[in-house]
């Protein structure tokens, strides 16, 4: 069994006694014991299994074809959408409500005109987050206008306003329930944890099936995707409230309601704001992706442009997305900091009661000014079309750096090389691997790193993929994930180690990482397509770029948090810097490194799936194809496989103490 080679006894040479000591130590640790148990189980089961269903990939006899039932269900829904009471009286109202409210917000934004919206956004940013962020907001809106993206930007903002409000309401209510009731918390926790690791793509199909393609499906998928962080952080914040304060409040005779309103919620305000921040960022990410299922706006422009590999147009639409993300993130983060700092900063006139009326008055003036000049929508005269020059530049790149550079090769050559030397062998290897072998490896890895529960979940998830009959495309996706993961980890941990060792490096990296972490996943595809063309290698490259910031950050923080006393004692013993790193820092930062791996896997998977849009193939492509051809059965199965793959990858890399560590 290949997994057995991970046992420590076979590594590093040493004296016999040292070796036995290691073996007993690892036995005590349990890793070897677990592997032995698995080996015994395998020795019994594998001959049976391979005798019965001898094949490399998942045996056909063990699959269940669900595309028929899913297709029937979707046909039934389409047939009954206008007649069945559930659709007419519940989902119909829901979907109408969504459409009406998004429309209403959009019309408000249009009525305000570009002058009004710009004034309002800038002033609000000024009030809650200060001058610098207000300036960023102003510039961002102007840039969106200049790029000719004013209308799609307003469409996206309208969707965002509604979906964020609904997500926050839903999340806060769930969080309240989880924060106040232990049973609810135990119920919610694993669900929310799991939802956070699932790729955004997996959420699209079920909503399309029920609501059809359109704004309701897009918005509700966004809500489901964006509400969990709010729920999670609300619950954790309410639970983490200082027990001493709560006791003091009770001792003064507060009722339960008073306790909640005057103490618990205010005490959790930091977590609540962090939750709002995360919800906004996830909603933006999803609103952009949901353009595939009918959300108009910036995401739709990117999607259309990517479909025709029009890099210039994609860039023009993605710049406003990035700017929106940065403004929203900074504004909410800064507002949170200010609340946390006990006292709002800034000049006193900005804090008075008259500020909000003043904002309203100035906005009104701006609206009037806009109407008088007769330009409600951004004036077309002041639009700069950047697509042609960008595309021209891309042509130049295709001609000059795609290939044929001496010694270096070229970006397209690299992509081809990566595909043929890394991705193809990996994919072929995974596909050729006997299915029971894959199950065993997953079980062994998950059990050694985590607990028997995580191992069981991971193995079952992989088996479900097989049963669904999408073993081959899943192995293809998995190969892309693994290749991207290895690159991410090597680069990320390397950079993280450097950044932890040098303050200057960290100072340079920090703003870059901040921006990278706020960008929606979709946006990463554009530069990659520009550089490498389409295919599996660009998808993997986008995944690497997307996952790097988180891995670098977690590694740096983990290394930084290593107890200074341990470092000092190593130094005083005369350890070299390399020795310090290898013998003190890295071992002590092990939990952080494991977390970095876990986060890396989750993020890489999310983008590899989206990479189906740019030729990544496999499961992501099945979802896209299912959506575009209306073959919902195919899409749903791929979606479930993505969920299973996500679960499996998360559980395999899930350190044992993660739950305990986050339990505060």
């Amino acid at each position, binding site marked *: 069994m290949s997994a057995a080679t991970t046992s420590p006894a076979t590594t590093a040479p040493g004296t016999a006694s040292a070796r036995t000591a290691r073996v007993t130590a690892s036995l005590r640790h349990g890793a070897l014991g677990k592997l032995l148990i698995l080996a015994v189980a395998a020795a019994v089961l594998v001959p049976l299994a391979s005798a019965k269903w001898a094949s490399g990939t998942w045996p056909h006899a063990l699959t269940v074809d669900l595309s028929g039932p899913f297709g029937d269900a979707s046909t039934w829904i389409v047939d009954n959408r206008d007649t069945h009471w559930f659709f007419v009286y519940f989902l119909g109202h829901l979907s109408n409500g969504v459409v009406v409210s998004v429309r209403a917000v959009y019309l408000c934004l249009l009525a305000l005109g570009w002058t009004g919206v710009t004034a309002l956004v800038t002033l609000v940013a000024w009030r809650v987050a200060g001058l610098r962020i207000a300036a960023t907001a102003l510039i961002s809106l102007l840039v969106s206008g200049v790029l000719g993206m004013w209308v799609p930007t307003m469409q996206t903002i309208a969707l965002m306003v509604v979906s964020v409000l609904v997500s926050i309401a839903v999340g806060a209510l769930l969080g309240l329930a989880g924060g106040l009731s232990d049973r609810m918390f135990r119920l919610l926790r694993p669900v929310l944890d799991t939802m956070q690791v699932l790729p955004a793509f997996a959420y699209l199909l079920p909503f399309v099936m029920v609501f059809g393609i359109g704004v309701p499906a897009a918005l509700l998928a966004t809500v489901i995707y964006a509400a969990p962080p709010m729920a999670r952080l609300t619950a954790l914040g309410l639970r983490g409230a200082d027990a001493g*304060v709560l006791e003091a409040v009770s001792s*003064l005779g507060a009722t339960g309601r008073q306790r909640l309103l005057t103490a618990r919620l*205010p005490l959790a305000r930091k977590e609540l704001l962090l939750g709002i921040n995360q919800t906004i960022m996830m909603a933006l990410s999803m609103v952009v992706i949901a353009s595939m299922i009918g959300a108009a706006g910036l995401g739709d422009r990117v999607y259309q442009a990517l479909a025709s590999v029009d890099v210039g147009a994609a860039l023009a639409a993605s710049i406003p997305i990035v700017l929106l993300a940065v403004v929203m993130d900074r504004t909410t983060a800064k507002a949170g900091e200010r*609340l946390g700092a*006990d006292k709002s900063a800034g000049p006193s006139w900005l804090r008075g009661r008259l500020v909000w009326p003043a904002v309203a008055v100035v906005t009104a003036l701006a609206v009037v000014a806009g109407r008088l000049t007769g330009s409600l929508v951004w004036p077309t005269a002041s639009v700069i079309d950047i697509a042609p020059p960008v595309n021209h530049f891309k042509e130049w790149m295709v001609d000059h750096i795609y290939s044929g550079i001496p010694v270096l090769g070229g970006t397209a050559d690299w992509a081809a090389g990566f595909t043929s030397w890394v991705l193809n062998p990996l994919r072929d290897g995974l596909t050729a691997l006997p299915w029971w072998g894959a199950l065993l490896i997953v079980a062994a890895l998950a059990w050694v790193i985590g607990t028997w529960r995580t191992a069981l979940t991971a193995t079952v998830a992989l088996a479900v993929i097989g049963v669904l009959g999408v073993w081959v495309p899943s192995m293809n996706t998995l190969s892309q994930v693994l290749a991207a993961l290895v690159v991410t980890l090597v680069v990320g941990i390397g950079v993280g180690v450097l950044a932890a060792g040098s303050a200057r490096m960290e100072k340079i990296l920090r703003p870059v990482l901040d921006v990278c972490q706020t960008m929606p996943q979709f946006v990463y595809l554009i530069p990659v397509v520009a550089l490498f063309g389409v295919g599996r290698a660009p998808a993997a490259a986008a995944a690497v770029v997307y996952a790097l910031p988180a891995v670098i950050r977690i590694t740096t923080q983990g290394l930084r948090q290593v107890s200074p006393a341990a470092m000092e004692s190593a130094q005083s013993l005369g350890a070299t810097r390399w020795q310090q790193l290898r013998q003190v820092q890295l071992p002590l930062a092990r939990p952080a490194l494991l977390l970095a791996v876990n986060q890396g896997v989750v993020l890489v998977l999310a983008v590899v799936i989206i990479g189906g849009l740019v030729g990544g193939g496999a499961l992501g492509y099945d979802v896209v194809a299912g959506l575009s051809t209306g073959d919902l059965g195919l899409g749903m199965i791929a979606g479930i496989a993505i969920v299973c793959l996500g679960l499996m990858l998360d559980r395999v890399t899930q350190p044992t103490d993660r739950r305990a560590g986050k339990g505060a």
Partner: protein
Amino acid sequence: MASTVVDASGTEKSTATTTGSQAEQDAVFAVRHLWKVFGPKAEKVPEDASLAELSAQELREKTGCTAAVRDVSFDVKKGEVFVVMGLSGSGKSTLVRCLTRLIEPTSGDLEMDGEDVRGMDRSGLRELRRHRAAMVFQHFGLLPHRSVLDNVAYGLEIQGVGKAERRARAMETVEKVGLGGLEHRRPGQLSGGQQQRVGLARALTVDPEILLFDEPFSALDPLIRRDMQEEVIRLHKEEGRTMVFITHDLAEALLLGDRIALMRDGKIVQLGTPEEIVGSPADEYVRDFVRDVPREQVLTVRRAMRPAESGEADEGAALAPDTLISDAIEAVARSGGAARVVEDGRCLGIVDHACLLNVVARLDEAAPDHGKAAA
């Protein structure tokens, strides 16, 4: 009922048998056989005599329960400072929380002004917490998002008092505890001592009948602690409010307490005035505890004096019976001769060099101890 209050107190309590009804009227809190047991089937422990007798460790091994408060009885009299003192884990903090049922007692009787606290429903209990007993906590328990003034006014806000009125009343207490000028700061911007003044002010603002202190000063620096102790003494002198004060610091207990209940493993091992605790320790544990106390600063000449011999009753300096030994030493040293202990113009006894030295050197311990016990 009062006859059951034997415990370790011995002195005043045992005489309460005769004047039981009067003692109960004076008591703000009357606590009888109070138990607090944590753990599975906690309510079985106090009922079962065989379990109730076990030591803490035996109990845990046998039932998995921990008895934080075991069979505790005492009265808190109107206007006194009642100190509960003990090391950490002795159950004193649990005990004070049981008084307003912040922790629900397992069994026993608990009365405040003759009203059964354990029988109160939620709204009755809330009224008790709102108006009659307020607590000051070791870690302050202030609301970090509110200004000092709003923290102090919080108790009134909970009661539904209007904003203007509660702020005006809060401002008075803010001034009273010496925080004038800081009322618009946030707790995070104050020092530990100042924060505890806010905690104290918050408790005072609701004008409670009784103040409960749970180790309020143990988190503070020694110098600031001294200031705060003096603040409490000053407040007590000015207002005469009843106080229950929890501490692990013997010096603090002796300084503040009119009476001290010394706890160990959930039980009160001795209850008495500071002089009784120091002068007549009930057992080896208490004796150990008070070993390092400078006795001359706690004990009075009443304990040191000997009967006057002929002629002595008219000579020498006159001292009141509650004069501290340290003051008496000074008087005796100055005059060079013995001093008389005089109460209402009657000579109770004589203190001379030998008597005073006996007390300081702990030679008096054995004899008066027995004397007390016999009395």
